[in-house]
């Protein structure tokens, strides 16, 4: 393997980036494709964020001020689909594209043409999804969970919704195959599986989850399509079908999907915390086992999203106990991060600040997750703002903070320049304050009885809704700073190869910015250890 790669490259000495738009359209370079994924994700983050602001503006005070209920429902639906499939997942694939080959000493992803294809499907998929906003009957408004029979009441947008979900699934599956093949086949000699960096590990596990569940989602939405247009009755009670079966199939995809969005985040912070603690990651191997356990458990807990649908008692018991078990490996991860910091020599650059906020605030999301696992209590929490608070805590200061931490951490390696640190810290503090202002009051709203997905509410919910709306606007504006910081990295001081004093791993042995082609001959995995210890 290694000799073939080296031989091939002997024949392509002048292999730099192509000129013009062709460089991006036809790119097979993991760094270019990684960049495109990240830029795409950031764009979707702002589009999805704008929709969130429509939602929060309408909910700022009781009464209906700006939008009609149907459009409000479209906003919640589109916000979720765009953030899940357009912002969070592509951001992690972007980080994987950029960093996995650099971390394992591979010259590129294993299947570069498929890599190009899996990226370019995404703008098409989201072009289709966004175009539904202009269609008769409006954009999909049945929630991102697409429960039948409600989803079958979607207007002209319905087949476009299904088709765009299919495309997103195809893109994710191809990306996942690429990650697995790259990690399994293209690691530097001496890098055994258990020596792989945590980010690579968590992505390997995530990729298997993706391959396992994206086809299930594709199957579920295909059944919706045939129910609507081809006379089947998979989910239609009138034809002998079962609407609840869709929920089972959807959440069999949906729960592993939750971990697809958080495991790579675990990986990112597991890289960053050791760097800025100047200490090795505590319990590397148990972190690997914990991530694997979480992945396994994610397949047997799906019906905890469905405690109110009317399951048999034994079923509810099983899903309650299995769900509670997830707290154990998740706890192990948190304890190991804290143990990594313990007696380290910490400094607090922006990536570290985001990672620390991740540990704090993800843990708060974990606590509310544990509360939600208790089935009798979940009957009260289910479909309220308590759930909205819970999943936004694990997704925004969870996944998204980890993505931002990763962006700050590797930005100097990508651009060759340091970003503006004070601007970065400002971005961190405004984001952290406003994210809590937005989502913490939602716990109270849910406990006090406010259902989710409603455009208007009774007046006793006013105060916390107003606070949440103010927080949301603040959080949205803060993200403009993020763009500013990224742009500042083109003008900043020159970055060294190692960038951070405490960084470890192969990615820091290549120059900053990382040249267009790296590791054309495989490095020895121990190079990094020898260079940095």
């Amino acid at each position, binding site marked *: 393997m290694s000799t073939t790669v080296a031989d091939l490259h002997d024949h392509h000495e002048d292999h730099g980036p192509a000129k013009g738009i062709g460089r991006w359209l036809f790119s097979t370079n993991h760094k270019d494709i990684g960049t495109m994924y990240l830029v795409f994700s950031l764009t979707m983050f702002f589009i999805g964020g704008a929709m969130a602001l429509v939602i929060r503006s309408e909910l700022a005070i009781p009464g209906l001020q700006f939008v*009609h*209920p149907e459009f409000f429902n479209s906003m919640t639906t589109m916000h979720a689909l765009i953030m899940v499939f357009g912002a969070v997942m592509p951001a992690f694939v972007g980080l994987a594209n950029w960093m996995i080959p650099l971390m394992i000493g591979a010259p590129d992803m294993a299947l570069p043409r498929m890599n190009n294809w899996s990226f370019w499907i995404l703008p098409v998929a989201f072009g289709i999804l966004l175009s539904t906003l202009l269609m008769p009957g409006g954009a999909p408004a049945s929630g991102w969970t697409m429960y039948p029979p409600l989803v079958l009441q979607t207007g002209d947008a319905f087949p476009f919704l299904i088709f765009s979900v299919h495309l997103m699934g195809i893109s994710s599956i191809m990306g996942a195959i690429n990650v697995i093949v790259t990690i399994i086949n293209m690691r530097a000699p001496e890098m055994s599986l258990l020596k792989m960096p945590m980010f690579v590990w968590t992505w390997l596990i995530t990729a298997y989850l993706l391959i396992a569940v994206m086809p299930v989602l594709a199957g579920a939405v295909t059944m919706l399509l045939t129910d609507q247009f081809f006379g089947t009755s998979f989910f239609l009670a009138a034809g002998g079908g079962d609407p609840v079966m869709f929920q089972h199939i959807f959440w069999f995809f949906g729960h592993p999907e939750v971990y697809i969005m958080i495991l790579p985040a675990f990986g990112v912070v597991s890289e960053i915390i050791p760097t800025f603690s100047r200490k090795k990651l505590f319990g590397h191997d148990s972190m690997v086992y914990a991530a694997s356990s979480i992945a396994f458990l994610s397949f047997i807990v799906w019906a905890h999203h469905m405690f109110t649908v009317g399951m048999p008692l034994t079923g509810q018991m099983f899903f309650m*106990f299995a769900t509670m078990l997830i707290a154990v490996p998740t706890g192990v991860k948190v304890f190991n991060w804290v143990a990594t910091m313990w007696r380290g020599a910490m400094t607090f650059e922006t990536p570290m600040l985001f990672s620390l906020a991740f540990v704090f605030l993800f843990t708060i999301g974990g606590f509310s997750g544990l509360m939600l696992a*208790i089935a*009798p209590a979940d009957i*009260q929490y289910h479909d309220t703002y308590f759930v909205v608070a819970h999943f936004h805590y694990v997704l925004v200061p969870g996944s998204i903070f980890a993505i931002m931490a990763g962006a700050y951490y590797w930005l100097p390696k990508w651009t060759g320049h340091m970003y503006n640190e004070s601007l970065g810290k400002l971005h961190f503090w405004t984001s952290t304050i406003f994210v809590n202002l937005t989502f913490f009051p939602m716990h109270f709203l849910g406990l*006090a009885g406010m*259902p989710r997905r409603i455009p*208007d509410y009774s*007046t006793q919910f006013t105060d916390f809704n107003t606070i949440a709306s103010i927080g949301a606007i603040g959080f949205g504006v803060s993200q403009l700073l993020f763009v500013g910081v990224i742009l500042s990295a083109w003008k900043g001081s020159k970055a060294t190869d190692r960038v951070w004093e405490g960084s470890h791993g192969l990615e820091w042995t290549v120059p900053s910015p990382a040249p267009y082609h790296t590791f054309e001959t495989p490095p020895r995995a121990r190079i990094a250890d020898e260079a940095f210890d």
Partner: protein
Amino acid sequence: MLRKLFFSLPALGLAVTAKAEWALNMPKGVTDLSAETYNLHMMVFWWCVAIGVIVFGVMIISLIKHRKSKGVKPATFSHSMTAEVIWTAIPVVILMLMAVPAAETMIRLEDSRDPDISVVITGYQWKWHYRYQDEGIAFYSSLARSSIEARRKQSGVDPNTVDNYLLDVDRPLVVPRGAKVRLLLTSNDVVHSWWVPDLAIKKDAVPGIVNETWFNAKEAGTYRGQCAELCGKDHGYMPIVVEVVEPDAYLAWVEAWKEDAPKLASMHQ
């Protein structure tokens, strides 16, 4: 104008008291199971607080003490089997302490045998239909007129002046205090969910399926809830009101309803 203000004053007073009752936490409710649910909720909450204090406490100590700026030399330890075993085993024990009472409540929650009254609840886009199985009483229950006026986009009506804005209906479900009421839920169109926080009941109404749950309210009063499962554009506008009345009053209500049934039925066609 003065008249309008005069009438809205008691409503404002109500809104303030309602706010105080609902503000931060789950209601204890008025059934044994709602109290049990509340206790479970608080038990897990306090466990989370305790774990949080310890974990965040250690982390904060570390953030304060173990800084490079304080001249700390980083330690070199990177694993400990003992530590991993301890922080795997302790959470397992805590989880078992939570799981046992949760399972006990779960079992009671599912036991809807021997009801005193059975009501069939059917969800419609966007109202509820109640049918008392043995009493022959049946009616629709929709959003109250006062809220219908105010809910329209830019209606010009301040929701604060509307009594129980979006939480009032034209016709509540009436049940006697101290009776075991079994609810049989289904739907005529899409999935709805019948939720009244004070009764700790949330159960989906699914087309083609009949779900079952029950409650036994210990205190007379008016308890309000909403549809909890997204069911289309007016999902936010199909509230639930349950009037729990003394048994005598309930019997009187049943009698009165039977006399007026033909009239009421025609009114609602």
